[in-house]
C-alpha cells in the first residue's frame, strides 16, 4: 500500500473491481478474440 493513500469504502472498492474486471474481460476478449477469429478464418 502506497504511503498515505486514503482508502475507499468496501462498496466503492467492489464497484471499482467489478468495472475493472468487466472492462478487462471485454478488452481481453477483443484482443485475443479478434486475432483468433482472423487466424481461424485465414486457416480454413
Amino acid at each position, binding site marked *: 500500500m502506497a504511503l498515505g493513500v*486514503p482508502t*475507499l469504502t468496501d462498496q466503492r472498492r467492489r464497484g471499482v473491481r467489478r468495472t*475493472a474486471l468487466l*472492462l478487462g474481460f471485454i*478488452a481481453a476478449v477483443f484482443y485475443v478474440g479478434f486475432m483468433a477469429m482472423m487466424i481461424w478464418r*485465414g*486457416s480454413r
Partner: protein
Amino acid sequence: MAYDSHVATDLDHDGHDHKPQGWRRWVYATNHKDIGTMYLVFAGISFFIGGTMAMLIRLELFKPGMQFMDPLFFNSMTTMHALEMIFGAVMPAWTGLANWMIPMQVGAPDMALPRLNNFSFWILPFAFTLLLATLFVPGGGPAGGWTMYPPLMLQGGASFPMTIFAIHMMGISSILGAINVVVTIMNLRAPGMTLLRMPLFVWTWLITAYLLIAVMPVLAGAVTMLLTDHFFGTTFFTAAGGGDPVMFQHIFWFFGHPEVYILILPAFGVVSEIIPTFSRKPLFGYEAMVYATASIAFLSFIVWAHHMFTVGMPLAGQLFFMLSTMLIAIPTGVKVFNWTATMYKGSLSFEPPMLFALSFLFLFTIGGLSGLMLAIVPADYQYQDTYFVVAHFHYVLVPGAIFAIMGAVYYWLPKWTGNMYDQTLGKWHFWLSTIFVNVLFFPQHFLGLAGMPRRIPDYAVQFTDWNMVSSIGGFCFGLSQFLFPYIIWKCVRGGERIGNRAWEGAHGLEWELPSPPPFHSWTEPPSDALINRGAAH
C-alpha cells in the same frame, strides 16, 4: 460519505504528503499526478524526437533532387515521425492530462487503479526504445508508412517484427490506461457529481476511453496477421495464397478512423473548458456538446473506407462511406457553433490558453473542411495520396490536437505548480506557432491540388517554390517550440504565486483545491455546494 477518512498508515496526520523520494518516487509511482507528469514529460520528449524527424523531412524537400539522405531513410523518417507523434506524443500527452485532471475534476483522491496506472506508463519507454532501435538494425527502420500496408510492409527487414512488437506494447498501454480512466469516472465520482455535471474534459475522455478499448485490439489483430504472413506462412494479405491486401486496409482503417477521434476528442474537451473560462460565461449547450461527442464517436466506426476510395469498391459502398463521413460535419458543426455562441457577448480576455483555443477553433475548422472535400468520392480520386491529404491531417492534428494540448498545459500549469508562468513568453510562443504552422502547412494544399504525391523524397521542379515556403515555415515552427519547455521549466522553478483559482472565470472542482494541489487530491469528497459551484456549465 464516499471515502473513509482514516488511512492505511498512521502518516496522514499532516496531509498525506509523505511521498517516496528520489528515483523510487517515479519508478514505483502510483500517484496520479506523478504518473501524469511522467506521461507529459514522455510526450514532450517524443514531440521533439518526432519533430526532429519532421525537420529532416522538410530539409530533404527544401528543393528538388536528392540532397541529404537516401530514399529508404526518407521513407523511414515519414513512418517513424507519424508513429512517434501519434503514439508517442499526442496519445501520452492526453493520458498525462487525464491522469492529472480527471481525479481532481470528479472529486476523487486518485485514479481507481494506481498500480495498473504505473504499469501502463512504464510500458511506453520500452515500446519506443524498441521502435527507435529499428533505425540501427540492418535494413533500417520501418519505411512502409505508419499505415503499414502490405505487401510493402511485408518486405521490411529486421525492423519489421520489432515495430510490430512495439505497436503491441503501445496498444496494451493504451487499453490499460483507458480501463483506468473509465473505472475512475464510473466509480470514483464524488457523491452529487452526476454524469451530466461532469466537466466536458472528463466526458470527452470517457468516450475516448471506450473508443480505445474498442479499436486497439483491432490494430493488434491487424499487425499480428502481418506478422504471421511474414514469419509463419499464412497468406491473409498475399494474393498468391488466396489472401487480399485490401483486407488489411479495411481492418487497419476500422482502427485508424476511430484513432483519429481518440486524438481529437479530448481536444474538444479542453477547448470546452478554456473558452467558457476566458469568456466568463457558461458553456453554450453543455448537453448538446456531450451528445455531439458521443455521435462523433459512433460515426467514427462507420466511415473507415473513406481512406481507401481508390482501391475500387462498389458504388453503393462509396456512397455509404461518403455520406456517413459527411454526417460527421453535423455534430462537429454543433461543437464549433456552440464554442462560438459561448464567446458571443462574453467578457473575453486573451491569455495564452484562450489564444491557443481560438487558434484551434479556426485552424481545426480548416482541417475539418478539407476533410469534407476529401469525403467527396470523385474529388478524392484526384486528391488521394497527394500533399492535399498531408495538409488536411496536419491541420487537424497540429493546430488541432497539439495546440489543444499546449492550451491545456497553459491552462492548468498554474494549478499544477502554484506559480503563474511568463504570459508574455507564452503569447510569443502562441503567435510564432500560429503564424508558422500556417506557413508550413497551408502551401501543402496548393502542392497537393497541383498533383504532388506524398511520401516522396524528390519531386518535379514545378513544386519547388511552395516546398521552400513550407520548409521555411517548418524550421521556424520547429525552433519556436523550444519556447514551450523553457516556459514550463521557468514556471516550475518559480513565479508569481497564485491562489486556488488561477483564472478569474474558471469553474470546476480542480479550482477549489490549493495550487499546487495536495499529493492526494480529494481525500474528503467535495461538498454539494462545491460541486454545484463547479458545475455551472
